């Protein structure tokens, strides 16, 4: 019920007095009226812009922020108003919703910002009024598509998860030729052979001069029959191999077989095989010749290589109804004009319009303004009809064409937008990476400069940080301190990417054979228990699962890993001096899944029979056994 109508409830209740005399039963008691408190004005200050409304207006919707007691959280005593640190422009629409009961969507606002505001104020977007609902849904869908696109291409462009099977790699190579060089080579080779095959088909029919004892011209195909046959064989070989490879690699073979491109592939290579089988049979060789026509379908294989061709095909498919209408109206007009023409020209002698179907040809040629001139009307009536026919032809054909053109334009621009987004994505990812690396390098720099100097790192800003705008030095200080705390907690340190990758390679080279599972599991359980007992012992859950996710498969059989701490070579030496009491487990080394690392702390060297004993001298070389959980 609209909010405004709710204001008429008192009237409806009063009008109920009209029922009283006819009522046969006593009325129920009215609910207690606790609305005695005066309706007052509420002042809402949204980022400096003041809004005022009646308290009752807001309380019409008690399950939103403004209508419930939740707004008391935003009450500002000093100024006796409710302060919200949100966008005042969008708030205007939200307040209007309370006033009128209809939520409108302003077209110039960003859809995500609007959605956020709605979520903040507890209003569900489904109640947007009909006037704005379509626009809202359109924008939302576009946004979702954009997000989906980003995710999809992110998934595609990620570092290749190394555990893709050979089949998946192949399929990926087929679908995205730019992912690997082999795929690119394959792509270009097939393209080349399609072109060669098509050209051969064309050149085959060109007259190539005469043979010695014949008069008439002979086509090149007959003259160099063997050469063309070999060329054809080679091309078909390649196409067959490609098709079989795709079929093998396809994630869902049935879907692949059903797809358009696969059908085109099959139609392109079938004639050759049928021809091979059928050459010796005389009476079907006529059919064999017709079959050669299907070889021209090879040209459609180019649509894998050309996005424009795909767009054209997609446009035609989506404009099927307009095309159908065009065809239908043309047919109608053709029949009408052909009939009239036939009867008009019936009288004239030696007229070419022998029948109505014969007149079809004339009508088509005239309506499309071709005008071959092989059939011409001779009577006056016929000429009048002919002129009307050509005029109307122009009209009928011109009408559906703009629709098809606009469809094509829309789809083309959509694909262009997708390309543009992909291009922009690279710079966007670059920005994000720079920001991330700026952040981590800021922290690393901060650490290397010594922990206690907070603000010095402002001065020693390195170029990569120029991309990151440092707005808030205090924030950075606190943030750095926080990261430091995290390091202390996990007894790991943050490193940059290159060192991490090099360490990964090293560890993968130096894999140790797995220990007996019983020992390790025993050690793990005891390690855990000992951790609970010994609070001096630090047990850490290594959180960096993404670091080692790639190698998960290869270490599945590994149950215990040795982690050897490397002597610190580069700038960490100063750090090492400070972090004496902890094992500086750089992330260079570790090769850790979700594991419990039980680290012995230096002062405690009580030997435990749990396999996680540590060697006493660990300041330089600590061996920590990590049991994989």
């Amino acid at each position, binding site marked *: 019920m609209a909010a405004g109508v709710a204001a*008429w409830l*008192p009237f409806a209740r*009063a009008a*109920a*007095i009209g029922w*009283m*005399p006819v009522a*046969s039963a006593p009325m129920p*008691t009215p609910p207690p009226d606790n609305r005695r408190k005066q309706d007052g004005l509420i002042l809402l200050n949204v980022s400096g812009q003041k809004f005022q409304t009646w308290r009752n207006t807001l309380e019409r919707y008690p399950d939103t922020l403004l209508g419930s007691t939740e707004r008391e959280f935003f009450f500002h005593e000093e100024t006796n108003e409710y302060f919200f640190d949100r966008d005042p422009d969008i708030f205007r629409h939200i307040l209007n919703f309370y006033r*009128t009961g209809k939520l409108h969507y302003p077209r110039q606002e960003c859809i995500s910002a609007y959605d956020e505001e709605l979520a903040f104020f507890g209003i569900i977007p489904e109640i947007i009024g009909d006037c704005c609902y379509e626009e809202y849904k359109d924008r939302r869908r576009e946004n979702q598509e954009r997000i989906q696109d980003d995710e999809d291409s992110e998934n595609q462009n990620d570092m290749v998860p190394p555990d893709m099977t050979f089949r998946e790699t192949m399929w990926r190579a087929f679908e995205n030729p730019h992912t690997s060089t082999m795929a690119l080579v394959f792509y270009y080779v097939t393209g080349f052979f399609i072109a060669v095959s098509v050209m051969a088909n064309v050149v085959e029919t060109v007259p190539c001069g005469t043979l010695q004892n014949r008069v008439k011209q002979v086509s090149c195909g007959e003259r160099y029959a063997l050469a063309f046959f070999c060329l054809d064989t080679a091309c078909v070989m390649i196409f067959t191999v490609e098709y079989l490879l795709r079929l093998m690699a396809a994630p869902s073979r049935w879907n692949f077989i059903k797809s358009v491109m696969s059908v085109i592939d099959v139609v392109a290579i079938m004639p050759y095989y049928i021809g091979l089988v059928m050459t010796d049979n005389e009476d079907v060789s006529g059919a064999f010749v017709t079959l050669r026509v299907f070889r021209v379908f090879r040209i459609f294989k180019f649509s894998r290589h050309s996005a424009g061709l795909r767009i054209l095909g997609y446009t035609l498919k989506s404009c099927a109804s307009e095309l159908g209408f065009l065809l239908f109206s043309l047919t109608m007009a053709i029949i009408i004009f052909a009939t009239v023409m036939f009867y008009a020209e019936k009288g004239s002698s030696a007229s070419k319009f022998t029948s109505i179907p014969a007149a079809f040809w004339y009508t088509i040629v005239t309506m499309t303004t071709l005008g071959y001139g092989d059939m011409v009307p001779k009577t006056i009536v016929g000429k009048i009809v002919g002129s009307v026919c050509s005029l109307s032809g122009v009209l009928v054909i011109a009408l559906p064409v703009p629709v098809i053109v606009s469809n094509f334009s829309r789809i083309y621009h959509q694909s262009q937008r997708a390309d543009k987004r992909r291009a922009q994505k690279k710079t966007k990812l670059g920005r994000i990476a720079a920001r991330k690396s700026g952040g981590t390098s800021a922290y690393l720099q901060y650490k290397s400069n010594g922990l206690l100097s907070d603000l010095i790192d402002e001065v020693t800003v390195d170029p990569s940080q120029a991309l990151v705008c440092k707005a808030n030095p205090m924030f950075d200080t606190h943030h750095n301190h926080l990261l430091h705390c995290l390091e202390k907690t996990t007894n790991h340190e943050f490193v940059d990417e290159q060192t991490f990758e090099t360490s990964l390679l090293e560890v993968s080279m130096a894999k140790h054979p797995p220990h007996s599972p019983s020992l390790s599991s025993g050690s793990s359980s005891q390690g855990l228990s000992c951790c609970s007992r010994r609070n001096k012992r630090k047990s850490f859950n290594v959180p960096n699962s993404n670091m080692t996710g790639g190698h998960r498969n290869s270490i599945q059989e590994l149950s215990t890993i040795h982690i050897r701490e490397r002597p610190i070579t580069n700038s960490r030496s100063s750090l090492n001096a400070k972090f004496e009491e902890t094992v500086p487990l750089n992330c260079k080394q570790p090769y850790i899944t979700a594991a419990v690392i039980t680290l012995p702390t230096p002062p405690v060297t009580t030997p435990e029979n749990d396999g996680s004993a540590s060697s006493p001298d660990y300041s330089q070389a600590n061996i920590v056994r990590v049991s994989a959980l």
Partner: protein
Amino acid sequence: MSSCRKRCKREMFKFAQYLYRLITGTLHADSVEDELELSAVRHRPEGLEQLEALTRFNRKELQILYRGFKNECPSGVVNEDTFKVIYSQFFPQGDASMYAHFLFNAFDTDKDGSVSFEDFVMGLSILLRGSVQEKLNWAFNLYDINKDGYITKEEMLDIMKAIYDMMGKCTYPLLKDDTPRQHVEIFFQKMDKNKDGVVTIDEFIDCCQNDENIMRSMQLFENVI
């Protein structure tokens, strides 16, 4: 004959005009002379002081009432369709249009086809702040559709059907077709003292004042505003 010829001439002239427009490209008859759009009826109510005098509401209550009224009807008057729409929103499961029609007639005291704010507020004043006598008077006025001072069985049947229509179909127990009629019979048995088939205002008021239930229910909506 001359009129015939005149008419012929007029027709010829119109046809010539039509041909001319066909050639020059405008086929719409009156493209230039647009009808002057009927401006929406605007009504401004009397001042607050007069309304305070006319009704039994105080200033604040009148302000609240007017704000609600103006929100739904920006033009200042309610016509019957808007009235029906507003009232129907309170009874979504049934059809409140007939009862709204009768209500509209009851509020539209000056019979001009629209309920202005004065009508509205005066009606409400009687319903909410009036004496029992006045309320009963108002109810009688509602039932007396043709305002002739008598309630006949047909009028009462119409009202009853309108009330039952508001219930809709999904009721318990099931609404039978002659339920309104039965109810009207009961009502007339109670109200029609002299059994002449109609109920006059005095019979009505007498009977209601003697009925405990009705008296009590009249006080029900005292504090609605």
